[in-house]
């Protein structure tokens, strides 16, 4: 039995503004926490959210280019809006599946995994901030990149042996006299090991290639710091942005009784990735091949370099650069 060829790639997600992929309300210290993986406690963005956002971004493009008027009944009432029509277009349904009412007809061809945190920005005494990562994250990235059929630089030599040690790229501005780095209130000893090659390759896969991003790509390669798994886990749990939000009484300009809640955000510069797998179209008639569908998806994603992900869009949260890099064909 031959396997239908699939196409795969990595979707890089780089937070341009603070991000709140919410997990609903909670009873803990923070009323509105972000989503976290159960077994690691690391922040994540649900694949279901990402798929919906991608569908919407693609559908708006199809709507703008192809559907210029609402479809009307004979009596003039709206039968299908422009968006409904775009939602039923092959360009959208082959990738993401039919509209809800017809969802039992076939499944979409695209699979989007939960976004995984790759690099997390932490305040540094020198150099303003460092992106931190750790061996556990890098190991998983190697597996995921292999799934996406993209090459990675080996991270075998980048494993800090003990907590409170770190490996810095050569010439990293966060280093203090070459021996220490101060992240938030923690002093880490610099250990031998240079993540420059790894960081450069990752930036090359996940960050945009536009001119305005060139400096960020360079900075990432210089300020990506590898810390111990436990230190990484500590920072992504306790070094998030927790904002107090209030409601004011309009007349007195003081806080309304009970109108105080705490919301958690992931900071600007957080870098996530998701694995995107595209199969051949699952329609019964003349199914398109995976490669062709991936190209179509890639083309549409290129047209929307910034997507809004998570909550609080109207207060400027969740704007992310996205980039889809396709891996080798199977």
């Amino acid at each position, binding site marked *: 039995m031959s396997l239908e060829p699939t196409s795969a790639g990595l979707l890089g997600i780089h937070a341009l503004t603070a991000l709140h992929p919410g997990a609903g309300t909670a*009873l*803990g*210290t*923070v009323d509105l926490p972000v989503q976290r993986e159960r077994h690691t406690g690391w922040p994540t963005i649900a694949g279901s959210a990402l798929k919906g956002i991608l569908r919407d971004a693609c559908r708006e493009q199809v709507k703008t280019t192809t559907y210029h008027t609402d479809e009307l009944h004979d009596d003039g009432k709206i039968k299908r809006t422009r968006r409904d029509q775009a939602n039923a277009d092959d360009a959208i349904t082959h990738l993401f599946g039919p509209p809800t009412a017809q969802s039992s007809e076939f499944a979409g061809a695209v699979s989007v995994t939960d976004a995984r945190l790759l690099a997390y920005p932490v305040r540094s005494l020198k150099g303003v901030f460092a992106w931190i990562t750790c061996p556990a994250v890098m190991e998983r990235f190697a597996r995921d990149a292999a799934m996406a059929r993209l090459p990675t630089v080996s991270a075998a030599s980048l494993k800090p042996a003990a*907590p*409170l040690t770190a490996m810095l790229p050569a010439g990293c501005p966060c280093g203090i006299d070459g021996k220490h780095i101060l992240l938030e*209130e*923690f002093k880490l000893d610099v250990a031998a090991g240079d993540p420059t090659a790894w960081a450069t390759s990752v930036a090359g896969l996940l960050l945009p290639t536009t001119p305005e991003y060139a400096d960020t790509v360079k900075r990432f390669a210089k300020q990506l710091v590898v810390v111990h798994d436990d230190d990484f886990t*500590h920072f992504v749990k*306790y070094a998030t942005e*927790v904002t*107090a939000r*209030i409601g004011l009484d309009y007349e007195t300009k*003081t*806080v309304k*009784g009970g109108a*105080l809640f*705490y919301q958690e955000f992931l900071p600007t510069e957080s870098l996530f990735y998701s694995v995107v797998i595209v199969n051949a179209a699952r329609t019964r008639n003349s199914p398109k091949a995976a490669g062709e569908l991936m190209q179509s998806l890639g083309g549409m994603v290129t047209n929307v370099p910034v997507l809004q992900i998570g909550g609080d869009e109207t207060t400027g949260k969740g704007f992310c650069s996205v980039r889809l890099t396709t891996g080798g064909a199977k």
Partner: protein
Amino acid sequence: MSTESKPTPDQERAKHAWAVVEFVLKKFPPTTVTEGGKQVKRPDPKAKKFGGHARKLPVRIMASGLGQALAFLKAKDYTPDLLEALGDWVLKKRTQTALLEAVITGNADTLRMHTAETLAYLQWLNRFCEANNLTDDTNSDGG
């Protein structure tokens, strides 16, 4: 060897927090007043202060660290019972400065452990305080 299952750490926290709130209610009992023909229980101001500061403590810890948050409470002397309760739960030492001293003299690992444990414990303490109406009426950050 006993075959009975043991309580979870979270159950133990709840049990301790419950006992602490009972203690506070006994030390500063509520007063019963008549309002509109009905008997209404009004919490004692000192008990409300206990609950009010317990409520604010988790965010103070997240914003300034466990050491600063505890030192602030000790300096202002708003509610000694809260500091004693934390010392008793986290370290089994029921003094006002036990936990603060442990933070000052400890290392990064003990700081993280004590912070995580204090935050987990405060969730229960705050829930029971709220249940007994031991909340501060003002929204300000002062005493």
